[in-house]
C-alpha cells in the first residue's frame, strides 16, 4: 500500500516504523528536516519537507496515486485541512486524521466525514486515557482490552502463588466455576508464548491472557492471584492532555489528585476539574508526595511529557509506598527497560495509537487491531463474510478451521452478543471473530484465511 504520513512526531514516527515493517510504501511529510533525516536513516521510506496541508507538498509526496493518507501532526486544523485537500484535489481513497480537541471529537458523527473528508478519526490521547482507565478499574491486570463496547474484555494478568488455579491444569477452572465462560488464548512463560490446552499447568509468574465477560472478570482473576483491594485513591503526576483527560474521566468514581509544576496549567486544571484536588508542585518532590500521603495511594500515574521524569517520579512513588505505579513512556527502549521491575506498568502512547491504524491497512475486514506485549503479539477483531463455499471459515465449527499454529479464536461477536468460543461453536456470516495471534509472523496467514475467496465477488 502507498501511504502518506503527515507529521514525523512521536505518533508519526512510530506509525511509520510499524507500517514499514509490514511492507508498505511510506512517505512522511514534516517541516522539521532533522526529524525527517532521522527517520530516513532508520527506515526504508521517503520523506518530503514542507507544510503538511499544502497541496503542492502533498502532490510532491505522491498524493495522486496514494492509497491512504494519515494526518497525525500536532495541529487538528492542519490534519483536517489536509484530509479535505486529499479527498477533493487528489481523491486519496482513505483519509485518517488525528484529532486531539474535544470540541472536534464531540461533533456529531458524520460531520467530519462530510465536511472534511475524514474517514476515520484517531485520538491518541483518548486511546491512552481509556487504557489507563481500564487499568485503574482492574488493578491486577497488566493490560486490558475492550471488545464489543466493553462487554467482553481481554485481560493480561500475572499469576501468583496462592491463586486456586495456579499449579493446576487449566481444565480445572471448569470444575471451580461451572457456570462461568472464560477463554484463555495464550500464556507467556518467561517471554515465550504458549497456546494452552486443557492439560496445561499454570505456573506462578506466568502472564496469562484471558477473555471473559466484564462481570466475570474478578472471579477469573481470583483463580490466578490474590485480589487487590478496590482502587479508591489515584494520584496523577502531570496535568497535560492525558493527565487532564484521565482526571476528568475518573474523578467521579475515585478520589483523584493531580500534580502539575506549572502554575498556569494547575490553575486551569483546578478550573476545569470539579472533584479533583489539583496540586501545584513537582511530582519528584519527596516532601510534597509525603504531604499528600503518597503511601495511601492505590494507583500512581506518571503522565508528564518527559519519559525520564515519569520514570523517576514513578520509582519514587513506589519507594514511598504507592501501591501500584504506572508510567507513560514514549521511548520503546525505556519501556522494555522498566516494565516488570519497580514500575508495575509502562504504557507507550505510540502503541495505543498504532493499533487502531493497523486495522485500516490490513487485508480482510478488520474491525480493530490491538498490539500486545509491545507489538510482539496481536489481537484482531475481524468481520467474516460469505458462505461455506466462498469462505474457509463461515459455516464451520471452530475445530474444523485450519488456523495457523499460535492463533486462537477467543470469542465471537454476533449481533452485539458475545459468544465465548468453544471447539464446537459454529461460525456464521457477518460474525466478528476475536482472534489472538501469539506472534506477528502468523498474522498474514490469519488474514488470508479470514478473507473471502474470489468466488464471492
Amino acid at each position: 500500500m502507498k501511504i502518506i504520513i503527515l507529521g514525523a512526531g512521536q505518533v508519526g514516527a512510530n506509525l511509520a516504523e510499524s507500517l514499514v515493517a509490514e511492507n508498505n510504501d511510506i512517505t512522511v511529510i514534516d517541516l522539521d528536516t532533522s526529524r525527517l533525516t532521522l527517520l530516513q536513516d532508520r527506515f526504508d521510506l521517503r520523506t518530503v519537507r514542507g507544510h503538511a496541508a499544502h497541496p503542492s507538498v502533498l502532490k510532491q509526496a505522491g498524493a495522486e496515486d496514494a492509497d491512504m493518507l494519515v494526518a497525525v501532526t500536532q495541529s487538528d486544523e492542519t490534519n483536517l485541512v489536509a484530509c479535505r485537500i486529499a479527498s477533493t484535489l487528489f481523491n486519496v481513497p482513505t483519509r485518517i486524521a488525528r484529532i486531539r480537541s474535544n470540541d472536534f471529537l464531540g461533533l456529531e458523527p458524520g460531520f467530519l466525514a462530510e465536511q472534511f473528508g475524514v474517514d476515520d478519526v484517531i485520538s491518541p490521547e483518548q486511546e491512552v486515557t481509556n487504557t489507563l482507565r481500564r487499568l485503574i478499574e482492574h488493578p491486577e491486570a497488566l493490560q486490558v482490552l475492550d471488545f464489543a463496547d466493553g462487554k467482553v474484555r481481554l485481560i493480561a494478568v500475572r499469576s501468583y502463588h496462592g491463586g486456586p488455579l495456579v499449579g493446576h491444569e487449566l481444565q480445572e477452572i471448569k470444575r471451580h466455576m461451572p457456570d462461568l465462560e472464560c477463554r484463555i488464548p495464550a500464556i507467556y512463560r518467561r517471554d515465550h508464548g504458549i497456546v494452552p490446552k486443557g492439560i496445561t499447568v499454570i505456573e506462578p509468574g506466568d502472564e496469562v491472557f484471558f477473555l471473559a465477560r466484564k462481570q466475570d472478570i474478578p472471579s477469573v482473576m481470583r483463580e490466578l492471584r490474590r485480589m487487590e483491594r478496590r482502587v479508591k485513591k489515584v494520584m496523577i503526576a502531570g496535568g497535560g492532555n492525558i493527565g487532564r483527560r484521565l482526571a476528568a474521566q475518573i474523578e467521579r468514581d475515585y478520589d483523584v489528585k493531580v500534580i502539575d509544576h506549572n502554575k498556569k496549567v494547575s490553575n486551569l486544571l483546578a478550573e476545569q476539574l470539579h472533584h479533583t484536588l489539583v496540586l501545584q508542585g513537582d511530582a519528584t518532590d519527596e516532601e510534597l508526595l509525603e504531604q499528600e500521603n503518597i503511601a495511601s495511594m492505590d494507583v500512581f500515574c506518571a503522565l508528564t511529557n518527559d519519559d525520564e521524569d515519569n520514570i523517576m517520579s514513578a520509582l519514587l512513588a513506589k519507594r514511598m509506598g504507592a501501591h501500584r505505579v504506572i508510567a507513560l513512556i514514549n521511548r520503546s527502549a525505556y519501556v522494555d527497560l522498566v516494565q516488570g521491575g519497580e514500575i508495575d506498568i509502562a504504557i507507550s502512547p505510540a502503541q495505543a495509537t498504532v493499533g487502531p491504524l493497523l486495522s485500516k491497512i490490513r487485508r480482510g475486514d478488520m474491525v480493530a487491531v490491538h498490539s500486545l506485549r509491545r507489538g510482539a503479539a496481536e489481537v484482531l477483531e475481524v468481520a467474516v463474510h460469505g458462505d461455506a463455499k466462498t469462505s474457509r471459515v463461515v459455516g464451520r465449527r471452530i475445530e474444523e478451521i485450519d488456523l495457523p499454529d499460535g492463533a486462537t479464536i477467543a470469542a465471537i461477536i454476533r449481533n452485539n452478543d458475545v459468544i465465548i468460543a468453544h471447539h464446537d461453536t459454529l461460525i456464521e456470516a457477518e460474525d466478528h471473530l476475536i482472534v489472538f495471534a501469539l506472534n506477528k509472523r502468523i498474522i498474514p496467514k490469519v488474514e488470508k484465511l479470514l478473507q473471502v475467496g474470489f468466488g464471492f465477488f
Partner: protein
Amino acid sequence: MSRIAPVLNVLSKVVMLFSATFLLPLTLSWLVADGAQRAYDDAIIVTFVAGALTWLFTRKSQRELQTRDGFLLVLLAWTSLPAFATLPLLIYLPHLSFTDAYFETVSGITTTGATILTGLDALPLSINLWRGLLVWLGGMGLIVLAVAILPLLGVGGMQIYKAETPGPMKDTKLTPRITETAKGLYLVYVGISIACGLSYWAAGMTPFDAVMHTFSTMGLGGFSSHDAGFSYWNSPAIEVVAVVFMLVAGINFSTHFLAWRHRSLAAYRLDPEVRWFLIATLGSAVVIAIYLTVMHVYPSFFQALRFAVFNTVSIATTTGFANTDYNKWPIFAPLCMLLLSSFASCSGSTGGGMKMVRAQLLFRQGRRELTRLVHPAARLPVKLAGQVVPNNVIYAVLAFAFLYVFAIIIMTLLMALSGLEFISAFSAVVASINNTGPGLNQVGPASTYAGLTDFQTWICTIAMLLGRLELLTVLVVFTRAFWRA
C-alpha cells in the same frame, strides 16, 4: 452641589412619575366611596409639585450620570419615595406621627412588611391597597435594581452574574441593554402576579384581598389587610397558593425570564441558587414540623406540617405572613426561621437578607481555607455552577458578610440601650435588615412595631433601608472618598 444636582434632576423625574401611582388607590377610593379620596388628591398634587420644582431648579445641571452618581440616586430614591408615600397615611390618619408613617412606607417599599398600624380590617380599602401597592412597586424596583443596576455599580449579589462571566451563566445577561432587560423582567413579574391573583381568588379570597395579597406576596413583603393575617381565612387552599408563590418570588426573576423565554425548566436546574434555596427552605420546614410534633405543640404531624411549612416558607423568603402565632412555639423553631431568612432567598428575587449566592460563596470560601490547611500546595478556586468566581468577588462577599453582622450587632446594642429586651431587640433588627417583617416577642407575628419608641422605630427604618440596598450601596455614600474628586 455639582455632584448632587444632576442626581436630583433624575430623581425629580422619578418623583413625578411616582405621583401617578396615587391614581390607583384614588380610583378605588372613588369607586367604593371609602372616604379617603381627599388624601390622594392632596398627595398627588404635593408630590408632583415637589418633583416639578426640583426639576425646574436642577434642569440646567443635566448631564450623563456616572457610576458613582448611581449610588446616590439609588439611596435618594429609596429614601425620598417612602417620604412622599406617607402623605395619604398622614392626611387620612391625623394622629399618626411622621416617624410611624415613614416606618410603614419604608417597610412597604423595602418589601419588609413590618407594620405599625392596628385595626387593619377597619382601614379604608384604598389605604390597604396603597400599602400593598408600595410593596409590589418596591419589589418591581428591586428586581431591576438587583439585576440591572447594582451589577453595573459592581455591588450586590448579582455582580457575580455580570456579563463578563463566561460559560453556562453567560445567558443570564438577559438582553444587551438595561431598558430591554427591565422590560423583560417587568413582564415576568406582572405575568406571575396575575397568576398569583387569580389563584388567590380561586382559592376563596375576595377580589380585593386577592389583589392586596398578590402585591404583598410577589414583593415578599407581608402586609395584610387583616390583623389576623392568614388565620383570618384558616384555609389550607389559600395557604398552598401563598406558599407556592412565595417560593416563586424567592427565585431569581432573571431565571424565571430565561425559563419563560426558552420554554424550558433547564434554567432552574442550571441556576446555582435555586436548588439550595428550595432545600434550605423546605428542608427546614420539615425539620421544624418534626420538632413541633415531638414537642407536642400540635397533636398530629400533618397539622404541624401545615403550620411549619407556611410559616417557615413565609419567614425564610422574608415575606412575613403568619397563619398562627409562632412566637408561642418553643424558641428553637422561630429562631431557626428567622436565621433562615438571612440567607435563603436568591439574588435577583424580591427577598431580602444576604442571599443564597453569598451564603454559598462564604461556605465555599470557608471550605477552601480548611482544605488549604491540609493541602498547602493545592490550587483551590471557589466555583459557582462550575465557573470560577474571581477572588475580588469573594473579598466583596466577605466584606459584605462582616458589615452585615457588624450592623446587626451595633443596632441590636442600640435597641438594648434604649430599653428593649434582648430577644425583641435582636429579632426586630434581624427581621428589619432582612426585610422579613415580624420578629419575636414584642414585635412578634401577633403584635406590631407600634410598641417601639421613636428612636427604636428609626433604627428599624434604617435597618430596612440598609438591608434592602445591600449595605455597601448605602455605606459608600457616607465615605469621604465618595464626595472627593
